[in-house]
Structure formats: structure tokens, C-alpha cells
């Protein structure tokens, strides 16, 4: 029997909550003993039945008692929360802000940095590029280089090329759409199946083959109803009518997120520029053969390129082949941006969580009397700890729910703002990992912030005294430090943005309207036709009221231009610097406000006769002494075949590509000399540029109804767009930083107010023995600032480290800019002094007679 009795006690211990056992375990044992005696007298079968019943009963009623207990805790928590709803709302809100920001940013970090690329066997995919001596950024391969590579690479199972370009999709309103030319094996390489129809065949991927096309699913649905219905139909593209052989799923975003149609790249291979080894257009990806490594592929392709150089010494000297996993194609800058946002949000999360913790600690210390009353009435410490934890869990649960809801709203905003910084195939959405992160955060907050105040409140009963403020002071110091890190980075980013906004782009950006116009290829076949088309546009638009000047050119400023090697007559034939080339009409420089420094502008006579060029001041400085450039001859592009161009003018340097990059070496040819069929018509207006949109469009449409017009934009909008991503992450980090400052200020204010309130007697005595109000104020302010000084010092150091990591995001300012650090320190002291001022004033107004009487 004693053995059975022990066994029963063990069963009770395993199945029932401690609190219940404390009240009823003995009773249950006694009842069991009686039942056991009876059962034994009836034989072993009755005994076995009794044990079975006991086990079953324990399994049934044990969990029910745990649920009852939880329900009771929740009821208690609800009562406490109802008594002080402000605490609960503020706590949940602060936590919700942190979790919303964290979930949204973690979703992006996860999609951009952690998630494998969305193709089958992602770790076997590589991107092949070239590193060239003239540029820090890697270049794509030329199409001939791709063909050679595909033939020779044995480490690659498949190699495929793709190239982006724009096509005109005819319809009621012809529209420009993003297209990609791809080699027939691209989909095979990425292992992507069409949603309907089939992939391209090798026979379709050669010049002269019947035109075929693949559509994006949305476009197919829009035009034909279903993907299946589209297959076999034709669609008018660029004056041609290719047959739709397949429809690609919506999720396929390669080589860009906005591609609507794909065509075989081989059909373009007859074009002269596609045969040119100096034209680097093909984004090449490959799939490693089983057993092959990235290093092996790199070694093989490097050897192949060396052999190519030996065969053709003039082609691509100094170019190195780059083979990298496709997954690492997120650019270093994007990686830094995303990582910086991830880091910033992590800091924000720590501050919000510790703010909630601080709130709980402060509140717990206000409940010492409640705790001691309940302890003396027989509540166990375990019971009270559970109570505190339940209350914290309520805050965490509501905060998390609010956070997830907020994250959904925030994510849209963030993805929109970061569109340029993210790789195309990244589709950030609130994912399980991010939800997990939020949930883990909530649990950690519950445990850490719930146990700390519980422990604090319970230990207060035993150790009252000055030490009780210590955990709070430490938390405040940590918060100040973290907030300071964020503020330093935010300040540096803001100053970068400010400097960027003041950068002189080299042209006057106000009052400029831009519309990209394409002449329909079918009707404008000769160079003369195209030249006449754009000249007529210029003549007609110039006569419109409100137009100050007009000229067309391409690419527009702040658009990545075409680049080629620059060669100077009499110089070496290989390895020249890289220069951009643009084709512009006469009057282009005057319209944009680019100063003509030497020589002359183009005239209507340029284009016939000797080939001419205008260069930027940077080119002139690089090759000739002052005033030595006019009359010299240069070539831009692959050296041997390009014609010589005579320099007739020198214009000011322009930040043509981005505002952040230094002005590049630029060359301009008259459009009439070698016309392109698409140009930006650039109009300088007397008033608001957008007011002229319809007049300009009408003038062009009247001339040619089939012309394709892009949506109009203003130069100021383009400039804003070019820095939109930077502005965006600066605003995000800045918002995080400001949020932490507000939280820190509130924390300091709250802690000090509490400290003043609980030390009325001490302050009263100081006052009674003759301390002046000024001295009292100084005393309290000092009390408030003391714990923050260490935090501030640590924060400035941490800020310097963070700024060093994020230095690639800074523009024209060093991560160690002393003015920024001094400013941040002064700003913090100001904010903290302001936060301590109110409690200090309250302390100074304490009437000693009342304060002493209260105690």
C-alpha cells in the first residue's frame, strides 16, 4: 500500500497544478486510500480498474484545472487593466509600433537577403559578367561573347542570355511596354514552365525565323481572356505580328519585375550592334553541371577569356570574367540599404520593448503595497509572478496583434518606397518568418519584461531602499545609447540627403517638361524620315504659347546612358576611358541650360558633311590643355569600325546618370548625323511645365497619330525620383530615430516623476534645511541626467561604428563628421534636460510642511 500511495501522489503531482495540489492533494490521497482498500478486498481486477480510472481521471481533470487557472488569471488581469487602462493602451501601442516596424522590415530583409531566389535549384544558378578596368560596376557580356561562352563552358549545364528593351504594343492607344529578348534556353536554365503553351525552340532563336513571343499572364488575360486562349494568336508589336507560343506565370520576374513580353534574342542577332563585341548587352546566367562548383566555372571561363584575348588582342583588353551565384546578385548598395534598415528596426524594437519593460517596472514598484497585502493574505509568490506575467502577456498579445495589422499597412508603403533598391524577383509579403519574428519578440518581451517587474515587485517587499531604482536607471542608459546610435545614423543620412539636394546637376532643372516620343518603325524607315519627323516636332512645339525653348535628345539627363570606349586621334587604340554618348538636336544645351564653354552648338547643317561632336569639359580637361580641344578628333565605341568625330564645342559637365555620381565623361552627337527613332522631347516653359502637356501631345499626335508617347514628366519630378530611394530610407531611419527619442524622453520623464513622488520626504527635508528652489531643481535634473551620460557616451561610440558600416549610404560626408556628433550630443542633452525639467519644477514646488506631514 505505501508503494501504491506514493504512486498515486506522483500521479497527482504530474497531472495537477501546484496551487490545486496545495489545497487538495492530501484529501485526494486519503480518499484514494479508502478506495484502494475496498478495491483490494474485491480482488486484483478491481484494483486494476481503480488504477485505470485514476489515470484516466487525472488526464481529464488535470488540464481542465490548468485552463481554469488561466481563466482566473485572465479575469484578474482584466480587472487590473480596467483599473488602469492608460498603462495598458500605451504599453500595447508602443509595443505595436515596434513590432509593426520590425515585422515589415524583417519581411523585406527576409525576401531580399535571406530567401533563396525563386527558381528551382537556386544554388546551382550563376550570373556571368565582366569586370572592366574603366568601371567599378560589372558589365554584361556582348552577344558574341555569350555565344562563345555557351559553346565552350563545360562546367555549365545550360547558359542563357537576356536583354531588356522597350517595344511598342499597338492597340487603341499604342503603348510602350517593357520587353526582354531571351535565348531559347533561358526558361530551361531557370526551370520555369509556361502557364500555357510552350517555351521557345532553338530553331526560333536565330535571325530570320518566324516571329514568336511569350506574354506575361496578366497581359494575356487582359487581351485574350485566358492564358490558353492567347496561345496561337498574334499580337501587334513594333509593326510586326509575332505569334504567341506561350504565356509565362505572373510569378516569373526575370530579368525584371515589369517585363510584359519576351522574344527570342537570336532573332536580333542580325543587327550590327548585336555582332559588336564592344556592345555589352547580354545578362548571362548559367546552371552548373552536377558536381561543378562556382570556382570551377570561374576558372574555366577565365581560361576561355584569356584564350579569346590571345586570339583577338584588341577586343576587351583587361576584362576579367566574373562568375557569381545568381542569389548574390543583390547589389552591394541594396544589401547595405536593406541591412541598415534591418539594423535600425532592430534597435527600434529593443527600445520599444525596453520602454514597455520600463513601464512595467515603474508600475510594479507602485504596487509594492498591493503585493505585500496579497502575500500576507496567503497568495504564493508563484501565484503573484503568474499574475504579473499574465498582465504582461495581455499587453504583448494586443501589441502583437496591433503590430501585425500595422505591419501589413507599412509593408506596402515600404516596398513601394524601396522598389529601386530591391532585386526584381523579390516579392516581399508578410511571411511566416516575419510573423514568427513578431511572435518570438512578443514571447521574449513577455518573459523578460514580465519576470523583471515581478521579481522587482516581490523583492521590494524584502529589500526596500535606494537600490530599487537601479534596474530602471540601467534600462534608461541602454535606451539612451541605442537611441543615440539611431540618431547619429539618421543625422548623417539626413545631411547626406541635404548635400545631395544642393548638388549642382550641371543643368537648370526648373520649368522643364519631358516626353519620350518614338517614331513608328513601319512608316519611318530612312534616317532622313526620322530626322525630319523630330525636326518638325521641334518646329511645331516651339510655336506653342508658353514655350521658351525646345529640343529633343536621348537618353534624357538622369537616365543611364549608353557608354563606349573613348579614343583620341593620335592616342593609343585600346583601353581608353569610358564615355557616355548622346544624340541631340540643335538647341539641346540652351534648352537644358547647360553652358556652352567653347566652340559652337550644333546647327541644322550638321549631319551632312564631316561628322562632328560636342564634348563635356571633363573630356577636354582629360586629354588637352585649356582651349586645346576644338578641332581635335575622337571615336566613341568599339575602336576600329567607329568613324572619327571632329570636336566643334565644349559644354559644362552634367550629372547625367545620377545626382550621386560625379559627372561622367560625356559626348554628344547631332541627332541628324545618326538618328535614333526614339528621343525625349524636352520643353522649357515660361510657366508651370505640366500645363503644356496636352498642347505638346496634340502637336505631336497631329503630326503622326501612330507616334508612341511616354507619360510626360518634369525634370524636377525626375530629380526627385532619382533620389527617392535615398529620401525614403532616410525618412524611415529618421522616423525610427525620432520614435526612440520620444520614448527615451518619456522614460526619463516617467522615471524621474516617480522618483520625485516617492522621495517627497527627502526633498521636503532638503527644502526644510534651507535648499533653495534652484538648488532643488539642479539636484533633480542632475538625478535625471546622471544615468543618461554613460548611455550617451556609449551611444556616440556605437553610432560611429554603425555609421562606418553604413558609410556606403553616405554622400559627401564622412562617417566621422565631428559636427554631426557634437550636434547629436547637444540635441540629446537638450531633449533630456527638457524631459527632466517638469519633474524638477514639481520637486522645487514641494511644500516641506505638507511633504513631512504626509509621511
Amino acid at each position, binding site marked *: 500500500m505505501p508503494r501504491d500511495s506514493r504512486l498515486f501522489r506522483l500521479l*497527482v503531482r504530474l*497531472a*495537477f497544478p501546484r496551487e*490545486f495540489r496545495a*489545497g*487538495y492533494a*492530501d*484529501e*485526494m490521497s*486519503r*480518499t*484514494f486510500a*479508502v*478506495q484502494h482498500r475496498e478495491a483490494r478486498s474485491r480482488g486484483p481486477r478491481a484494483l486494476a480498474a481503480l488504477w485505470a*480510472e*485514476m489515470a*484516466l*481521471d*487525472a488526464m*481529464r*481533470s*488535470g488540464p*481542465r*484545472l490548468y485552463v*481554469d487557472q488561466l481563466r*482566473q488569471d485572465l479575469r484578474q488581469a482584466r480587472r487590473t487593466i480596467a483599473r488602469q487602462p492608460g498603462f495598458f493602451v500605451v504599453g500595447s501601442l508602443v509595443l505595436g509600433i515596434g513590432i509593426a516596424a520590425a515585422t515589415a522590415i524583417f519581411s523585406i530583409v527576409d525576401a531580399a537577403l535571406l530567401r533563396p531566389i525563386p527558381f528551382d535549384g537556386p544554388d546551382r544558378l550563376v550570373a556571368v559578367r565582366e569586370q572592366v578596368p574603366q568601371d567599378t560596376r560589372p558589365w554584361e557580356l556582348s552577344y558574341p561573347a555569350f555565344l562563345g561562352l555557351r559553346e565552350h563552358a563545360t562546367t555549365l549545364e545550360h547558359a542563357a542570355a537576356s536583354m531588356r528593351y522597350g517595344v511598342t504594343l499597338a492597340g487603341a492607344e499604342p503603348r510602350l511596354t517593357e520587353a526582354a529578348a531571351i535565348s531559347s534556353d533561358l526558361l530551361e536554365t531557370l526551370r520555369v514552365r509556361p502557364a500555357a503553351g510552350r517555351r521557345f525552340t532553338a530553331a526560333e532563336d536565330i535571325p530570320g525565323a518566324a516571329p514568336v513571343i511569350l506574354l506575361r499572364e496578366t497581359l494575356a488575360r487582359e487581351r485574350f481572356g485566358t492564358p490558353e486562349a492567347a496561345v496561337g494568336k498574334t499580337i501587334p508589336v513594333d509593326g510586326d505580328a509575332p505569334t504567341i507560343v506561350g504565356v509565362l506565370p505572373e510569378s516569373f520576374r526575370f530579368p525584371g519585375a515589369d517585363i510584359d513580353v519576351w522574344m527570342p534574342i537570336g532573332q536580333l542577332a542580325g543587327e550590327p550592334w548585336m555582332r559588336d563585341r564592344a556592345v555589352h548587352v547580354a545578362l548571362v546566367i548559367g546552371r552548373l553541371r552536377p558536381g561543378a562548383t562556382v570556382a570551377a566555372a570561374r576558372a574555366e571561363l577565365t581560361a576561355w577569356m584569356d584564350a579569346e584575348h590571345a586570339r583577338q588582342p584588341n577586343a576587351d583588353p583587361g576584362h576579367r570574367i566574373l562568375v557569381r551565384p545568381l542569389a548574390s546578385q543583390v547589389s552591394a548598395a541594396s544589401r547595405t540599404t536593406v541591412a541598415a534598415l534591418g539594423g535600425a528596426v532592430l534597435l527600434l524594437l529593443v527600445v520599444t520593448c525596453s520602454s514597455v519593460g520600463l513601464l512595467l517596472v515603474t508600475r510594479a514598484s507602485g504596487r509594492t503595497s498591493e503585493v505585500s497585502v496579497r502575500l500576507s493574505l496567503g497568495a504564493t509568490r508563484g501565484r503573484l509572478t503568474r499574475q504579473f506575467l499574465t498582465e504582461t502577456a495581455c499587453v504583448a498579445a494586443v501589441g502583437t496583434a496591433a503590430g501585425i495589422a500595422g505591419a501589413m499597412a507599412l509593408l506596402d508603403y515600404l516596398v513601394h518606397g524601396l522598389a529601386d533598391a530591391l532585386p526584381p524577383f523579390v516579392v516581399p509579403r508578410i511571411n511566416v518568418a516575419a510573423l514568427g519574428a513578431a511572435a518570438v519578440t512578443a514571447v521574449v518581451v513577455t518573459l523578460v519584461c514580465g519576470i523583471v517587474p515581478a521579481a522587482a515587485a516581490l523583492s521590494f517587499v524584502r529589500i526596500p531602499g535606494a537600490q530599487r531604482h537601479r534596474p530602471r536607471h540601467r534600462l534608461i542608459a541602454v535606451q539612451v545609447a541605442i537611441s543615440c546610435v539611431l540618431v547619429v545614423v539618421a543625422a548623417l543620412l539626413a545631411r547626406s540627403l541635404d548635400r545631395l539636394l544642393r548638388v549642382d546637376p550641371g543643368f537648370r532643372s526648373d520649368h522643364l517638361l519631358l516626353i519620350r516620343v518614338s517614331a513608328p518603325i513601319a512608316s519611318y524607315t530612312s534616317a532622313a524620315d526620322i530626322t525630319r519627323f523630330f525636326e518638325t516636332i521641334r518646329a511645331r512645339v516651339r510655336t506653342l504659347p508658353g514655350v521658351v525653348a525646345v529640343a529633343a535628345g536621348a537618353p534624357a539627363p538622369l537616365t543611364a546612358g549608353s557608354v563606349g570606349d573613348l579614343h583620341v586621334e593620335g592616342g593609343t587604340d585600346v583601353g581608353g576611358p569610358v564615355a557616355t554618348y548622346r544624340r541631340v538636336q540643335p538647341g539641346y544645351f540652351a534648352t537644358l541650360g547647360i553652358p556652352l564653354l567653347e566652340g559652337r552648338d550644333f546647327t541644322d547643317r550638321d549631319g551632312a558633311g564631316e561628322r562632328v561632336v560636342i564634348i563635356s569639359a571633363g573630356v577636354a580637361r582629360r586629354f588637352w590643355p585649356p582651349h586645346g580641344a576644338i578641332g581635335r578628333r575622337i571615336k566613341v565605341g568599339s575602336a576600329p569600325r567607329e568613324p572619327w568625330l571632329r570636336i566643334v564645342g565644349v559644354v559644362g559637365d552634367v550629372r547625367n546618370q545620377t545626382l550621386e555620381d560625379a559627372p561622367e565623361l560625356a559626348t554628344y552627337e547631332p541627332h541628324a548625323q545618326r538618328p535614333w527613332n526614339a528621343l525625349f522631347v524636352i520643353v522649357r516653359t515660361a510657366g508651370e511645365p505640366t500645363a503644356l502637356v496636352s498642347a505638346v501631345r496634340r502637336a505631336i499626335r497631329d503630326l503622326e497619330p501612330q507616334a508612341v508617347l511616354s507619360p510626360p514628366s518634369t525634370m524636377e519630378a525626375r530629380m526627385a525620383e532619382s533620389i527617392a530611394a535615398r529620401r525614403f530610407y532616410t525618412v524611415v531611419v529618421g522616423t525610427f530615430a525620432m520614435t526612440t527619442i520620444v520614448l527615451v524622453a518619456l522614460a526619463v520623464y516617467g522615471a524621474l516623476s516617480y522618483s520625485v513622488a516617492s522621495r517627497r520626504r527627502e526633498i521636503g527635508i532638503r527644502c526644510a534645511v534651507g535648499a533653495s528652489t534652484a538648488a532643488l531643481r539642479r539636484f533633480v535634473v542632475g538625478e535625471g541626467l546622471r544615468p543618461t551620460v554613460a548611455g550617451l557616451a556609449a551611444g556616440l561610440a556605437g553610432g560611429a561604428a554603425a555609421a562606418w558600416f553604413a558609410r556606403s549610404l553616405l554622400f559627401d560626408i564622412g562617417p566621422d563628421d565631428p559636427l554631426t556628433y557634437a550636434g547629436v550630443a547637444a540635441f540629446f542633452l537638450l531633449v533630456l534636460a527638457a524631459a527632466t525639467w517638469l519633474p524638477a519644477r514639481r520637486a522645487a514646488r514641494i511644500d516641506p510642511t505638507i511633504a513631512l506631514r504626509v509621511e
Partner: protein
Amino acid sequence: VPYRFDPEPYLPLTAPMFQLLLALADGEKHGYAILKEVDRRTAGRVRLSAGTLYGLLKRFIDEGLIAESSERPDPALDDERRRYYRLTANGRAVAVAEARRMEQAVCDARAKQLLRNPRTS
């Protein structure tokens, strides 16, 4: 406003709950006695095991339907460690309300000829 206890939120009771309240209706009992009485009265149809019984007792005590009795019947006859339980006025109200509810259900069943009328003797 005088406080009036409303038994409605406690209804319906499960069979073990009702039997427990019923067992205490005619006087206070200790745990084992409750077990025996329910077993005997229901002829084994409702089995209250120790865990269920004490779980319910704790819950009803927390809710004020049952109270621990301070009086002992006869110290000579009793193990003094034993705890006795009695029905409170609220507990009685809940038991009565549950019995009425069941009575009403039986009436309804009779009206629909689901059950025959009780024999009048």
C-alpha cells in the same frame, strides 16, 4: 439596490456537477462520502473520480457555491484531518435552477409525446 444572486449563468450543469450539488443538498459531507453517495444514488451511472471531484469542489468553492464546513459532526467518529463541504445558499439556488431546467425539458418532451405521462398511482 439589494443584491440578488442569478443562477442562470451557471446553467446547464454537467451530470457530475449536478450530482455533486445534489449530494450536498441534505447536509455536509466529506469527499469520500460524496463519491459513495453519488455512486450509490446513480447506481454507477455517474462516476466521480478523485480528480474530477476535487477539481469541481475547488471551482465551486472559488465561485461561492460550496463552502468548507467548520463544524465537525462528532469528533469521536471522525478523522479530524478530513474536510467537510456544504452547499451555500447560492449553490442551492443553482442546483434548484438546474433541476427546474430539467423538469421543463421533461415537460416539453411529454407535450410532444416523446415521453409518456407518469403513471398516477
